[in-house]
């Protein structure tokens, strides 16, 4: 399925250079990319190719050295950290490789806390958190702490948290890397539903060949340069 809607995110001519002693390292070179609603894009590349850096830039966590980013049709000023935080808060969900749940909070509280940050409070936030936990099939584990959850369950909570506030874009970094086969399959099904049913753009950084099967596009980053594979599953 190739979406025709205007892109959620459009990045043009992105460069990212890190100082390294007296020299410099160019982590991302002249990358241009557009992500449309409902589209699933897979980003692959060898270790150190700049995947995480690119994901951080697209997720408004890191400012590019040069280039422009448009989010939902609006240009973003990379020098305005307040505006970048606002975009993250309102429109971007993250799924991390290591889940990164808050140890001191239960599954439902992890989701509720994200909702609190996104401006929802009180009973409304708790109801929404419960609904999201149910959506990822963890109602029976809603009050368990992360340390009592399996890796797959933790990642499902992480997905529920990423969906809090109904974001336009979800960025997932190696979401199946720390999971067993079966849990990985479940997470992939969940992410696919997130994009297709919710009309969200989804970008997944992965080495997992199963992810290619659900992707619309497959991008390959090598030494900071982006190219597109001819067939998503190839």
């Amino acid at each position: 399925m190739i979406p025709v809607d205007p892109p959620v995110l459009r990045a043009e001519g992105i460069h990212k250079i890190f100082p390294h002693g007296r020299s410099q390292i160019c982590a991302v070179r002249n990358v241009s990319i557009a992500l449309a609603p409902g589209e699933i894009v897979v980003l692959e590349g060898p270790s150190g190719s700049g995947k995480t850096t690119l994901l951080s830039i697209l997720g408004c966590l890191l400012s590019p050295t040069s280039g422009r980013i448009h989010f939902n049709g609006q240009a973003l000023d990379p020098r305005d950290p307040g505006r970048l935080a606002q975009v993250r808060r309102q429109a971007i969900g993250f799924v991390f490789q290591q889940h990164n749940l808050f140890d001191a909070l239960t599954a439902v509280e992890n989701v509720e806390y994200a909702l609190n940050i996104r401006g929802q409070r009180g009973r409304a936030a708790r109801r929404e958190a419960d609904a999201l936990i149910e959506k990822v099939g963890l109602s029976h584990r809603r009050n368990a702490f992360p340390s009592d959850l399996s890796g797959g369950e933790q990642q499902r909570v992480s997905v529920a948290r990423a969906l809090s506030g109904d974001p336009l874009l979800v960025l997932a970094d190696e979401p199946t890397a720390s999971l067993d086969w079966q849990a990985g399959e479940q997470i992939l099904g969940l992410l696919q539903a997130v994009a297709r049913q919710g009309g969200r753009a989804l970008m997944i950084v992965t080495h997992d060949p199963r992810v290619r099967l659900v992707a619309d596009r497959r991008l390959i980053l090598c030494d900071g340069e982006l190219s597109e594979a001819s067939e998503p599953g190839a």
Partner: protein
Amino acid sequence: MARDKPRFAATVLGVAFAVALVLIQMGLFRGILQNASISVEKARADLWVTSRNTANVDYGQPFPASYVNRVRSTPGVLRADNLIVWIVRVGLPSGSTELAIAYGLEDFLRWGLPWSLSEGGVEDLRRGNNAVLDESAQTRFGAFNVGDHREFQGRRLKIVGKARGALSFTTTPVAFIDYHLLQSLDPMNLSGRTTYILVRLEPGADPSAVRAEIQRRLPHNDVYLSHEWAERSRAYWLDTTGLGLNMFVTVFLGCLVGVVVVAQTLFTSTMSHQREFAVVKAIGGGNAEIYGIIVRQATLAALLGFSLGGLATLAARPMVSDLGLKMILDGQFLAVVLAGTVGLCLLASSVSYRRISRLDPAVAFRA
């Protein structure tokens, strides 16, 4: 952090130690300091007339007893009586001698001295060679009972009562003796003389105006409002013993220990949860959310530490009392220490906040 039990326990114990140190030291300090002026605060006098430059209530300097008539005739004065506060030598059954601070009045009941009695009464003080002795004297004088005799300045006086809480800064025992009897115990210094004049004002009289008039009539004496005289008595001991500096150093060290422990453990805990703080930033949380988390941790540690330290202090109170010491812990003082504890814990948390506020949210993506 509350789920990181060993680290949280270390934080709370650090705060509790500092709180107990400050409460016990300050409580003892306030107790000792109160002894320096308790008789001034308890006596029902509005003004005290002293000899010129008398340093504190225990060190009375004699002046003519007849001055009391000039005071009594001052407009606005309801009543004025002579009070002698004098150090006397007390012979003990063991053969040794000790000192006591004797208070001499004609009418003790009128002036509310002594203010508490555990045994006997002051009525018999005017009926012979009698004395009321504070029960704390047992520490220095050994056990005694009502009906026993002790030698005051070489004269046998019968103990007709035991006072309670009549203490002096130096812990020298306090005795209450009839005014004329006390004069006769040291006639060379006290015959026809007094060391203070207690003044009670008529209702509605202006204390400052009356004081000014008495001062005019007794130009070689000093006249104090009661609270000023109490303050002067306390200030003397603070200034001359270095007690204030000692207390400042102790409180400072207690606060320092608390701040260092809290800052160190909060910082370590914060650093070990960097990734979680990065996630807060990544999902759009600002520094306010992060500071909120750190503040909650610091406040919780402060409240639990204060409770634990407070309980330890209360547990130590009977032991302190057995040593004959007084520890004053009133609500206002506890509230100040609680506010200080929370404030210092928040100050300690600022170290963690400064570090986390500069944290790159992209850390959340790093494996």
